[in-house]
């Protein structure tokens, strides 16, 4: 396959950015999207240009490090798939592909397609945990959990913190990410004691970071590689209301 890429290039946090066009030839349909970029980068390095910086680590869809907006869709158009798991067989030969970083004020661009997502960590710091120091836990079987609750909690817990939800949300809201953690913990007995303070603190932190508010447009769940459901946002809202 031969492709034309339009890629956002920005040399540093305060440098101006621009879209730059490259051609990549002889791409195999079995390549992953990142492998296709690897090919571009190898050539760029050899010609003395700066390769396109992008975040990635596991390359198997679980670490949440990769992520770019591909043709206007966070992680590309294939549903429930991270950028690293997206394969070139889903593109057409000769296609032009537009590649941009996540866009949100709380996710400032570090370089090219790399953004700073530390705001997510601070949302977790605000309360996304159960306070239980190592060694103080009771026997695991002393806390039975209804299977349905455990399963629902799990569905919410699978969030990989990639930030695609923010990237896709027309309001730049981090509601899906925040709600996923709140829901995970609020469905489990272990999460009850801190349930309301957690919801309040995390939502307030989300605001403090400068994310937008949710107007329930559902773009987030549509691009979420883990399919975190919108129900989690309702759960978050409900806990937040109760906390106030």
């Amino acid at each position: 396959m031969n492709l034309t890429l339009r890629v956002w290039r920005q040399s540093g946090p305060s440098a101006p950015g621009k879209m730059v066009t490259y051609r990549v030839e002889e791409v195999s349909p079995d390549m992953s999207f990142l492998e296709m970029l690897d090919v571009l980068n190898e050539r760029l390095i050899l010609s003395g240009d700066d390769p396109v910086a992008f975040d990635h680590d596991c390359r198997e869809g679980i670490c949440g490090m990769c992520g770019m907006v591909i043709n206007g869709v966070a992680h590309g158009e294939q549903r429930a798939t991270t950028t690293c798991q997206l394969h070139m067989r889903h593109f057409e030969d000769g296609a032009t592909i537009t590649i941009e970083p996540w866009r949100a004020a709380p996710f400032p661009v570090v370089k090219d397609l790399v953004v700073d997502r530390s705001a997510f960590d601070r949302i977790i710091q605000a309360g996304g945990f159960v306070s239980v120091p190592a060694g103080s836990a009771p026997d695991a079987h002393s806390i039975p959990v209804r299977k349905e609750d455990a399963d629902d909690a799990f569905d919410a817990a699978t969030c990989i913190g990639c930030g695609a939800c923010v990237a896709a949300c027309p309001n730049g809201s981090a509601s899906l990410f925040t709600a996923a953690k709140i829901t995970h913990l609020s469905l489990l007995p272990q999460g009850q004691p801190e349930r309301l303070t957690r919801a309040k603190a995390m939502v307030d932190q989300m605001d403090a970071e400068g994310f937008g508010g949710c107007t329930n447009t559902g773009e987030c769940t549509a691009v979420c590689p883990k399919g975190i459901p919108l129900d989690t946002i309702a759960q978050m809202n409900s806990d937040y209301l109760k906390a106030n």
Partner: protein
Amino acid sequence: MKYTEGPEIQDTKAPSGPIEDRWEKRKFGAKLVNPANKRKLNVIVVGTGLAGGSAAATLGELGYNVKSFCYQDTPRRAHSIAAQGGINAAKNYRGDGDSIYRLFYDTVKGGDFRARESNVYRLAQVSVNIIDQAVAQGVPFAREYGGLLDTRSFGGAQVSRTFYARGQTGQQLLLGAYQALERQIAAGTVEMFTRHEMLDLIVADGRARGIIVRDMVTGEIERHVADAVVLASGGYGNVFFLSTNAKGCNTTAIWRAHERGAYFANPCYTQIHPTCIPVSGEYQSKLTLMSESLRNDGRVWVPKVAGDSRPAGEIPEADRDYYLERIYPAFGNLVPRDIASRAAKNVCDEGRGVGPGGLGVYLDFADAINRLGREAVEKKYGNLFEMYERITGENPYETPMRIYPAVHYTMGGLWVDYDLQSTIPGLFVIGEANFSDHGANRLGASALMQGLADGYFVLPTTLGDYLAAGPFGEVSDEAVAEAEIKVRTRIDRLMAVNGTRTPDSFHRELGKLMWDYCGMERTEESLRKALERIPELREEFWRDVKVSGTAEELNQVLEKAGRVADFFDLAELMCLDALIRTESCGGHFRAESQDAEGEALRDDEHFAHVSAWEFSGDGPVLHKESLEYEYVKMTQRSYK
């Protein structure tokens, strides 16, 4: 490569007495740090995986002043996140005859009698607390309808002791540790440095006193001093270029510590995982693991005759060879990893492999789907099947999966004593970065167990014992400056080469060489070839590598180049270690040492020891630590 032999390691600091009491004894014997003093004691933890994340969180909870480092943009992305299958614990919730002793026994045997009994026993003891801790944190383990925890059996075990969270156990456990860590960050006990790469260890007055790191965003070189340093930087499987490890996994942290005096133990022990998605082309950047749990229900087979190119569906039962079930009737598809991997290699070498290049075997779910129904199979393995389909474009519900072995885990690592302290006082090493508990082969679901045991329970105790003598006073400026200059010089050198080949192209070449010559099967000849070729390639690297951009910015090429440079040095030591260990054991298979049936043949008389390598300017120095087995009788491993 020439090496010399130094004195044997005499004392591992394991307490004596009955094995069940040793850890109790050690804990009781450990000195305690006065709570008021803890705030004054600084600890550096490199790595935020299961081991480092849990350690930093726990040390923070205890009141120490902790600095935590990782190269990713957030601690939650450490490679541990990718673990799929599960975590072992001797809870015996099933009442199927499990016990601490049995887990201990299985692990020692599974490690092919190359692990320490005392350490393994402690691991089995602590395993129980890990599950309690994780559950209390809200880790959503799989549950039964009664609301209690579910378990399953996992590669190499005949009891059902593996706790799991769908196919994302590592993720859920890591998020538990990450959340505990973030809680401490908010509390101010832990300071987090993301996108920071450790490039050297500061040793002053014979103690590890800090690290030199590069801020990967600005390129700034920073010094951090402390009273103790903990390395939890994970494994070095990426020396093979293609592995199941995350792309960033590296040996840099432990290798540079090795150069500063920490012994490197058993570097040649690498684990090849039998169930990975086969390589599809030369652009391939990494290999993806399919959880071993698939072997619980999938059946492995290849065509009976070489060159049978019919599609899987058209090959009748009579023409299929379910070779694992045939050769190992007792364990069948569940034999340990090293055995399953080699068996796959053997059938492919016979020309019976399937898929592109004949490098693959089938993992077939047709029987399971018939027996349990598609829905049940989907429930159990749905996400793995999806992952497979996404990567290969094939639907495993209809055609059998193709799998092939791939490098997965490194049992070797920095040598540590019973306290997890390396040969440099004040340098502790935990998780996959150390060599400790798995011997020559790691059983499934036991790396997560070890990482968390080290981080939540063992290290906080033993480190306290060390720190009780602290604070250790000012660190001499020379020691810090010397380390910093060394780092800067190395970076400058890499930037200055300005050659014609990318770091990745060298890495690929090195990886291929290692896979061919020091991979699943090693021979004296292949290892000698590798030892000849590696220095040439390394020389070429330093002469011809091309690093674009500058060192004062986010520069992923520079990061990569630094890591590849360290892989060269490590690769050489691995081959040397593999060369002089002329026996086969666990993941280390020397073709010269096999029994009549082609199984690994140990040589306990000459090799019942740990090989701990000391770095020295003129060739490595080998120190042996002999292994004694008081509780588990050394036998030839048999899974037939």
